[in-house]
């Protein structure tokens, strides 16, 4: 089993001050799911349902308060930063903020390499080709690219580490329809050609149905439903899923 998550809780606390007591917000409540190798999981839900928090927990960027999370049978807390970088990579929802504005794309991408690997240039070229970009972008700065291009570069950067798990946190959030389709095609290509398992976070149910094998629906930090795509497609009795589907059709 690639990922096994059991009873995960995450609480955010506000700082106490002279005028205010400390407040607690239960962001994730009793989240359990598992993912097998070769499967793609989509995490869907409304804004504020805890999707990004769960993604950050899965990539060990933030700790969780209780529960158990294992990747390949090993507890996530026992991974070193280096091990984790080769296991999980994440693509963030804002392509404008995911690149250091002071560094060229070439420098940003080369940070995925530990030392002076001989095949560095070839690997970068291959991954850029995979996302439909050329090597001549390496000397340019992030602000010289559109949102869609930056998101593609971000995908190429994440793939440079050859991670087992690629978490895409609402990769279409700030993109136009044409760019969304291009990025979706890239994910489908990665799923087919690379040995990377994708965890796709979105509120677009149609996109989630197209790319994934399993779907985890979050509502107010709780699991509203965790099932295979075919079961969700067949069983339309769940009111919340129907509401999400209806919202997708409205945006279309």
């Amino acid at each position: 089993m690639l990922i096994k998550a059991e009873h995960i809780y995450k609480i955010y606390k506000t700082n106490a001050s002279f005028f205010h007591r400390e407040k607690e917000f239960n962001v994730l409540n009793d989240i359990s799911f598992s993912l097998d190798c070769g499967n793609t999981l989509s995490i869907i839900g409304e804004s504020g349902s805890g999707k990004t928090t769960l993604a950050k927990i899965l990539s060990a960027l933030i700790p969780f308060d209780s529960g158990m999370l294992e990747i390949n049978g090993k507890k996530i807390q026992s991974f070193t930063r280096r091990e984790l970088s080769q296991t999980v990579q994440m693509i963030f929802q804002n392509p404008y903020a995911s690149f250091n504005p002071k560094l060229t794309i070439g420098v940003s991408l080369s940070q995925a390499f530990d030392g002076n690997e001989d095949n560095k240039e070839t690997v970068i070229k291959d991954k850029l080709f995979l996302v439909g970009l050329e090597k001549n972008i390496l000397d340019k700065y992030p602000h010289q690219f559109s949102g869609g291009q930056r998101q593609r570069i971000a995908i190429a950067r994440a793939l440079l580490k050859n991670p087992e798990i690629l978490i895409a946190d609402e990769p279409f959030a700030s993109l136009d329809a044409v760019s969304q389709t291009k990025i979706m095609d890239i994910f489908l290509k990665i799923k087919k050609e690379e040995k990377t398992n994708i965890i796709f976070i979105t509120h677009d149910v149609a996109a989630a149905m197209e790319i994934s094998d399993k779907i985890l629906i979050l509502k107010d930090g709780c699991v509203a439903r965790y099932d295979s795509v075919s079961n969700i497609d067949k069983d339309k009795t769940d009111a919340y899923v129907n509401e999400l589907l209806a919202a997708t059709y409205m945006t279309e």
Partner: protein
Amino acid sequence: MENNIKKLLRNKFAVAGLLIIFLLITAAVFAPLISPYAPSEQNLSERLMKPSMTHFFGTDDLGRDIFSRMIYGARISLTVGFISVVIILIIGTFLGIVSGFYGGKIDYAIMRFTDIVLCFPTFFLILLIIAFLEPNIYNVMIVIGLTSWPGLARLVRAEVLSLKEREFILVAKMMALSNIKIFTVHILPNIISPIMVYSSLAIGGAILTESSLSFLGLGVQPPMPSWGQILTSGKDYIYIAWWLSVFPGIAILLTVLSFNLLGEAVRDVFDPKENYIEKQ
């Protein structure tokens, strides 16, 4: 880098600032060759002479040439300005980055210490320390440096706090970059502009503080000339010999102004986004 220098040279204010700083540094380095008289050479028969071709900026109450004394004084002012700011930069940037990046108890401890240092009125704290120590140029530089870092530490901390939540820093963590590399490659280049602006202001501030200390007799000690000290000597003769106060005053003003102009221009040049907008 070449482009940045070209862009800097296209900015009129930066060129003016650079020119003044270059002249000051040249005057300070080649002081013995440029100054027509020795800075401490007294000639009582020529005391309090107006500016003329023999004494460009006039003479003081002991007949010493003000122009020569000011050229030597530039050495003191620039040394104090640069070295104090280096001390401020090292302490302020280090504490600010560590405090902002690690957060929690480390941040709390550093920030409360910063608050304590900020509680004291800096100039009076400097006066107090200098009063206990021997008033000389080295103590002045060290004390200015050790008391003026809290502003920079707070500025750097605030910048780091907003930066560390930015996604490219999270990406850097996910790429398993060491904290040192995150500081040097991702954080420092993104906070360099406010640091540069702060430094340029701090150089001016340090020169002013040194001048004020020398004015009060707690800075550079006679016969070593400094701009603040020349100002002091002019205060008793302000109605009969204006040149004793005006020329060092102008020198301090121009130096502080040129560092500020340069800092402002460097801030613009280091921002690739602004470069890009201008190109378009």
